[in-house]
């Protein structure tokens, strides 16, 4: 390997010549490794590889939280030996069994998600270095710990854009190693695929962290700002009298040029710019660090993509990358909406006009000569999209283009329905469309209207309808009023949690006065509709949990109002505090959620971050009451985000559709030997309650998810006050949503002080009568019964090497 390092030097005799070496492959990592040697204290896993976390941490997790495999399909169609029938855990022609194959399938989802975020990070990093230079400082708000995920993996703490490069290279190198293992005839053990998936999850949070910190720094996004501005959200917020530019995707790079062009040409109030998915969230963060009045709007999540296009509202659509539907061009073409592809990851087969003159491209698109084009030059992109929108608006208006059926068309379509039920079998949400059609025939449209929020806009129903009824348009037609009222507020993504907030909140979290952190993230593949996440957020906020949120979850929460017409963002503060609703940002901002948990360990408990994943994760698993909710997790990125939370000891509840990820991590609560840890003070084994009882599982309904999550915030090292507060919430929520007290509450009781205050006496009685515990009724004390002892100074750990006498 070259001994040259990144930097610049000049040759003395040739005065006017300067050679700049921006990057030498491998050298950056070498420099980083040199630096790592200088670190005073570092853990054992700086620059980890495929095997680094396996024995010391991952297998420990997977021993308690066993992989639960639920195959999607009985076959393996991976190579030309096959297809093979693996049902009943048979082995295929290559020798892999059903467990191994499904471990591989899940792992493949995780590395795909990781690659998506990492590639997004690489794109932004290179673009921003080119635009702003390597020395642009990572100004992210009041924090010393800027990049906890990067630091845990590499030991590095970059302070500017250039210093991020070694971390980026590290992720890319490991991703190649990981991808190689998927090839036929490589890894075949399910458990090793799980260990590799967990590793990939940790890399994902590095990739996401890179994406978000560089955009926060370069684009002047809010910087750990609890009072970031409120942004308008919902389909109903679009002013249809103005030309409307609709952006879809996850990469804000190109959109900033459009916004700059709008601002330079004084167009911000003459047209609408709004988006779907994370590009929308991030465009609403652009230049908002000084809390200027925002003008960009958010429409919603991926489930609204087709609905918005079918509404005919957009005059131009721009896509970048990730979570973009594959049928946007044909759908948009029907309504004369030009589509601009702005990122090489999605080019849709469109003609590439990157090198063309903007005037010419505007003409080509306006005339309909081409349905859209690729435009990868951002300067031109900014001008093209805005000018085209301003021109297309009046043209499309004059033609009165919309896909919403007229009243007559609507009545005809409804009358045509043969009640065959094919659409219901095809609908991934199992919506009873035939029943709703039946009621519509009799003039009752309420059933059809109810489908609007539950429908994810996939159009599988239309594909199977023999009567060729445009079912999605029918649903939209009846939901026009509902859509017009879809207007809410979302706090602009505020960026990471500051060190000061961690210091202030750390004690409350450990004491239990803040009963836990609930992270609501992920996509819109809900089982019962968008409002589920609103109900969940509201319940936890009212109970003083900290609710952090990102991506589609953050949007959907803002879509609904209480009886006073207020959204949750207006009702609850935006700080990382008791009862705070903290919109961290877009999907890539999820790294700041794990980052917050890591910071609790680093700042509050003084644990070393550098190369120390196992110890940080061990601390979080035992002490930090946090639980994620990815209620509509649909994409591969959601699986990598969740798996990154899992390796760090943060459990996640998913919606019922996510059973299709094929893999969950659930512990056997009845196996007592699984529920033991060491006391780091003396290395002795100590029993713990079954908490948390899963790292990844699904719930059937939002009502079930709530008590599950409250329970998952219980941690082995809760003190008595914390335990009694957490038990109070969990038991109340269980009763409220499941109709009864839970059966297993007593397993979490170590002494009388752990019992919920309001019910202490009644519960003591139950412990005596049902479980045979001895109670001293004079002192209202438990004399004997609990299997678990409580000792305030105990230091629970799963890592024997942390024990003093180990």
């Amino acid at each position: 390997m070259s001994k040259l390092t990144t930097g610049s030097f000049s040759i003395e005799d040739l005065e006017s010549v300067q050679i700049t070496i921006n990057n030498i492959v491998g050298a950056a990592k070498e420099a980083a490794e040199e630096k790592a040697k200088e670190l005073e204290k570092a853990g054992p896993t700086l620059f980890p590889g495929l095997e680094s976390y396996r024995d010391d941490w991952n297998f420990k997790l997977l021993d308690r939280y066993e992989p639960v495999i639920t195959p999607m399909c009985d076959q393996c169609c991976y190579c030309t030996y096959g297809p093979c029938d693996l049902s009943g855990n048979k082995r295929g022609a290559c020798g892999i069994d059903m467990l191994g194959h499904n471990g591989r399938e899940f792992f493949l989802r995780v590395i795909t998600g990781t690659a998506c975020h990492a590639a997004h990070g690489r794109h932004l990093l290179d673009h921003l270095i080119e635009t702003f230079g390597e020395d642009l400082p990572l100004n992210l708000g009041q924090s010393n710990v800027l990049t906890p995920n990067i630091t845990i993996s590499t030991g590095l703490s970059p302070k500017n854009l250039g210093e991020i490069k070694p971390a980026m290279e590290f992720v890319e190198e490991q991703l190649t190693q990981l991808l190689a293992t998927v090839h036929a005839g490589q890894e075949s053990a399910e458990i090793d695929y799980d260990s590799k998936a967990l590793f990939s999850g940790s890399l994902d949070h590095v990739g996401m962290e890179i994406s978000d910190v560089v955009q926060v720094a370069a684009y002047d996004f809010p910087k750990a700002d609890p009072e970031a501005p409120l942004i308008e959200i919902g389909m109903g917020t679009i002013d249809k009298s103005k030309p409307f530019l609709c952006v879809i995707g996850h990469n804000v790079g190109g959109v900033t040029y459009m916004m700059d062009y709008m601002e330079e040409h004084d167009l911000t109030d003459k047209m609408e710019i709004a988006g779907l998915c994370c590009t929308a969230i991030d465009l609403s963060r652009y230049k908002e660090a000084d809390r200027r009045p925002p003008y960009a709007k958010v429409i919603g999540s991926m489930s609204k993509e087709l609905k918005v296009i079918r509404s005919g509202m957009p005059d131009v659509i721009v896509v970048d990358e990730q979570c973009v539907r594959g049928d946007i061009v044909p759908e948009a073409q029907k309504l004369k909406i030009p589509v601009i592809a702005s990122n090489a990851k999605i080019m849709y087969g469109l003609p590439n006009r990157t090198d063309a003159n903007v005037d010419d491209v505007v003409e080509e698109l306006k005339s309909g000569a081409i349905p859209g084009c690729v435009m990868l030059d951002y300067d031109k992109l900014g001008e093209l999209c805005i000018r085209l929108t301003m021109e297309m608006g009046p043209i499309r208006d004059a033609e009165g283009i919309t896909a919403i059926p007229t009243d007559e068309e609507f009545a005809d379509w409804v009358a045509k329905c043969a009640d065959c039920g094919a659409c219901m079998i095809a609908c991934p949400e199992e919506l009873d469309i035939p029943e709703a059609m039946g009621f519509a025939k009799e003039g009752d449209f309420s059933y059809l209207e109810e489908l609007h929020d539950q429908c994810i806009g996939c159009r599988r129903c239309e594909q199977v309808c023999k009567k060729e009824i445009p079912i999605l348009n029918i649903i939209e037609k009846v939901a026009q009023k509902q859509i017009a009222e879809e207007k809410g507020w979302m706090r602009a993504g505020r960026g990471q949690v500051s060190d000061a907030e961690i210091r202030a909140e750390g004690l409350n979290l450990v004491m239990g006065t803040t009963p836990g952190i609930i992270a609501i993230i992920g996509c819109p593949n809900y089982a019962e509709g968008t409002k589920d996440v609103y109900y969940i957020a509201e319940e936890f906020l009212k109970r003083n949990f900290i609710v952090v949120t990102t991506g589609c979850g953050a949007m959907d929460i803002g879509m609904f109002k209480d009886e006073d017409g207020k959204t949750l963002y207006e009702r609850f503060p935006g700080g990382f505090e008791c009862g705070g609703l903290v919109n961290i940002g877009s999907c890539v901002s999820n790294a700041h959620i794990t980052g917050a948990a890591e910071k609790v360990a680093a700042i509050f408990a003084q644990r070393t971050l550098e190369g120390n994943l196992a110890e940080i994760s061990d601390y979080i698993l035992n002490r930090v009451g946090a639980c994620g909710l990815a209620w509509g997790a649909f994409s591969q990125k959601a699986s990598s985000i969740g798996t990154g939370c899992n390796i760090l000891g943060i459990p996640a509840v998913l919606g019922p559709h996510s059973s299709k990820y094929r893999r969950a991590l659930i512990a056997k609560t009845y196996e007592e030997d699984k529920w033991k840890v060491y006391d780091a003070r003396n290395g002795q084994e100590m029993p713990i309650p079954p908490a948390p009882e899963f790292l990844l599982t699904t719930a059937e309904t939002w009502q079930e998810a709530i008590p599950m999550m409250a329970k998952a915030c219980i941690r082995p090292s809760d003190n008595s006050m914390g335990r009694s507060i957490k038990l109070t919430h969990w038991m109340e929520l269980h009763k409220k949503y499941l109709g009864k007290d839970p059966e297993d509450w007593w397993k979490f009781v170590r002494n009388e002080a752990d019992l919920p205050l309001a019910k202490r006496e009644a519960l003591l009685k139950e412990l005596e009568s049902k479980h045979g515990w001895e109670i001293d009724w004079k002192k209202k004390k438990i004399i004997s019964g609990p299997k678990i002892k409580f000792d305030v100074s105990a230091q629970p750990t799963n890592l024997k090497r942390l024990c003093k006498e180990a």
Partner: protein
Amino acid sequence: MVDTAKNTKLFTSYGVSTSKTVTPEIAAKLISKAKRPLLMVGTLTLDPELLDRVVKISKTANIPIAATGSSLASLADKDVDAEYINAHMLGFYLTDPNWPGLDGNGNYDTVIVLGFKKFYINQVLSAAKNFSNLKTIAIERGYIQNATMSFGNLSKADHYAALDELIDLL
């Protein structure tokens, strides 16, 4: 008698093996013969028509209920032997011969499922299908591929009628 053995079109999953269709009569026989049956009930039983039939099946055949999702809320006051457990967790525990069961007396030999979205129960049962010998009988409105036995796709009315027939034969 409702013909519950036709229309086995499926959209939720695919593969080489699909469940055998059963009539209410055969389902009733299998349930009656089971040594340690469990009625696994999902949240769609919040529908009063379905709830009523769940209660009847449980009482007539004396089968305990695993109330998953938020179904316990509607079963709590129905004087049936019902206990809450998460469906995914239950699906996993059912594959473990050492699971003590909901009552501490050991794992079950037959699980009857009712009241789920197809896509969800189908995934949960795919673990049991591939990694255990458990017999699972789906008496749902939709055809459940990964059950051992299942009704075909039925209309709402036929489904209720089929369940009534089954109850009569228990």
